[in-house]
């Protein structure tokens, strides 16, 4: 019994197919009638950086949920909901670039929220330039992202060279007697060298004498470095490095009986492994954070920094760090710029260019802190306003200690001798 398609079946099938296509057309038409603002998130949801990548997603999503509860972004008196699409960068710059292209070309996103790492951000940046899609990066921290003056990328977190430099001034102004000198060392590798150079360049504005500056290979024995610092005896020792180097540095300093009045390191000390592995020897080491729930800022959507902390904890079950906060604040930047641009979605190429111009002109205060992007220089489109919060390890916990309006504990200075 051979199967044969009758004329009636053919017509039925054709009618169904045409009907399905029509439904699709109606769907697109319907979306056109109630337009949304389409946001793409390119971040590392898998691979080595998935932990940080998911933090960025949490930050972006929390903003989207909160603004949609209000009905969406207010543009000219009408509210437009935001619709999130995700692209997994897989902790790999090339995959990040592909994900961005897919979001822009296939998902037709109007704006992109940027990746977790600077490496992926650098790969996604040219894609945004090509399609004229603004990107707000809630996490990229390398100054290398901004030196080429990316026209469509905007960074929420001050580049690491700026934040490390500013931190010296914050420390110097927060302790008594005021420190007079700083010795800077760092690992000669991307990010760590930027950090060390930031410390070096921050010495003069902080009115500290720079007793020495040295970069060393990542796998070097740090004992000679510590020996040299000991002979120079600066009040503050600033180290740019990753977790392994920081642990070895503290161990070498202790073994030589050398305890400067203050020891400041960037980021690595907030990794749980640092305090876990060093135990009591980690106490007193200072580090830098760009935001804590204690900072004195607020906005209309999230309320105060403390309110944001509570909201994020209720939503995700863990307290947010500065990366999550900066990512949520990225949404606030989009809100503000879209309102100022005043053009209802859907947005075409020239609308997106106008949106980028509006983002460039941002000057707002959020729960995360002030946001305004540089329009010239080596930190082009980087938000350089936030003042770093100095944290210190106290009884194994990371406690904000300066500036005074963000402090949750007393700064220990000068450090006591090794126990």
């Amino acid at each position, binding site marked *: 019994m051979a199967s044969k398609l009758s004329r009636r079946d053919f017509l039925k099938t054709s009618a169904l197919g045409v009907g399905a296509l029509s439904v699709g057309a109606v769907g697109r038409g319907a979306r056109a009638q109630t337009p949304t603002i389409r946001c793409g998130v390119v971040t590392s949801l898998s691979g080595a950086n998935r932990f940080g990548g998911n933090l960025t997603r949490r930050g972006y999503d929390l903003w989207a949920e909160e603004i949609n509860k209000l009905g969406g972004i207010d543009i000219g008196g009408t509210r437009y909901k935001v619709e999130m699409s995700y692209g997994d960068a897989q902790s790999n710059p090339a995959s990040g670039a592909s994900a961005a292209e897919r979001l822009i070309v296939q998902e037709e996103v109007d704006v992109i929220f940027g990746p977790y790492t600077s490496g992926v951000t650098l790969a996604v940046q040219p894609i945004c330039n090509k399609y004229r899609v603004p990107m707000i990066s809630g996490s990229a921290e390398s100054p290398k992202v901004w030196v080429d003056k990316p026209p469509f990328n905007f960074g929420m977190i001050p580049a690491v060279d700026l934040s490390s430099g500013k931190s010296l001034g914050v420390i110097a102004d927060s302790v008594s007697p005021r420190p007079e000198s700083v010795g800077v060392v760092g690992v000669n590798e991307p990010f760590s060298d930027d950090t060390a150079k930031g410390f070096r360049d921050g010495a003069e504005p902080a009115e500290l004498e720079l007793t020495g500056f*040295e970069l060393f290979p990542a796998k070097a024995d740090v004992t000679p470095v510590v020996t040299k610092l000991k002979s120079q005896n600066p009040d503050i020792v600033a180290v740019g490095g990753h977790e392994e180097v920081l642990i070895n540095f503290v161990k070498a300093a202790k073994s030589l009986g050398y305890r400067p009045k203050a020891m400041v390191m960037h980021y690595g000390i907030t990794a749980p492994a640092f305090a876990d592995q060093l135990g009591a020897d980690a106490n007193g080491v200072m580090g830098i954070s760009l935001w804590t729930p204690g900072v004195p800022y607020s906005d209309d959507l999230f309320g105060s920094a403390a309110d944001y902390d509570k909201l994020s904890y209720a939503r995700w079950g863990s307290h947010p760090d500065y990366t999550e906060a900066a990512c949520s604040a990225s949404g606030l930047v989009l809100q503000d710029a879209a309102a100022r641009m005043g053009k209802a979605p859907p947005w075409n190429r020239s609308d997106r260019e106008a949106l980028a111009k509006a983002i460039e002109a941002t000057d707002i205060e959020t729960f995360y802190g002030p946001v305004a992007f540089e329009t010239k220089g080596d930190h082009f489109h980087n938000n350089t306003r936030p003042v770093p919060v100095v944290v210190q390890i106290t009884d194994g916990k990371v406690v904000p200690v300066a500036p005074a309006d963000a402090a949750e504990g007393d700064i220990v200075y000068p450090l006591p001798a090794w126990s």
Partner: protein
Amino acid sequence: MDLFLQALANGVLIGGILACLTIGFQLTFGVLHVIDFAVGGWVMLGGYAGYWALTLLGLDPFISLPLVAVVFALVGRALGPLIYHVRTSRYARPDLMALALTFGIFIFMRGGALWLWSFNSRNVDTAIAGPAIQLGPVALPVLRVVAFAAAAALSLAVFLFLYRTRFGLAVRAVAQSRENAGLMGVDVPRLSAQVYAVYTGLTAGVGVLLATIYSVNPDVGVRYTLFAFFVAVLAGLGSVGGVLVAGLFLGVVESLVAIYVGISYSHLVIFGALYAVLLISPQGILRRGL
């Protein structure tokens, strides 16, 4: 002058430990004629064994060190026949096959460490990590002094074993001529496996010491493989005596260059010295073998 003395002390203390690290490597080369790429891997695993002994059993690394050495010696004893078999294979280029095998073992070790302990650095704390002993202007870290003493004791034990025992005599005989030693009644395959066991035990023991001074993570192995290669080539491949001189030389030069020239130039100067020694004395610093 104070800084110079401090740099010298730092260099001697760490150089002594690096020398001890290379002794086993040299023995293995002398007897098995294998350049063991996995030497840094044994150091790394020894460090992690010390970490586990501390965190799981509560044993101070200086107490667990002999235990770690014995356990790794047993592992080496089990692995030794395989290394010997590959090295003495009748197939083409057994020397390269052995090199590839140890390289594979090294990769396997690193992968295993990543799986077991992740990327995070681990600190191996010890009760000995007290304040430095102040000798005039020079601060001698207690931990490094004790680690140096332990390394020196291990090195001395190996020397006594080599030059004061019949077994040591057999080892030196095999190093000089495997065929003749075999003809004199030495069980060469068995002895080779035993030497490999001494090497793995000794190297893992040094790994415990290095983990207490620094920290340990899956990537530290490459650094120690590099050190072992440098010391071994400077000493003359197979020369155990030269290792002591070369290890101290490496430690002191690295320390002095780091302080007076710049730490970024350490490896440049060290390798410059290595090439100079190879040109002047290709047999190594002491111009003699095992």
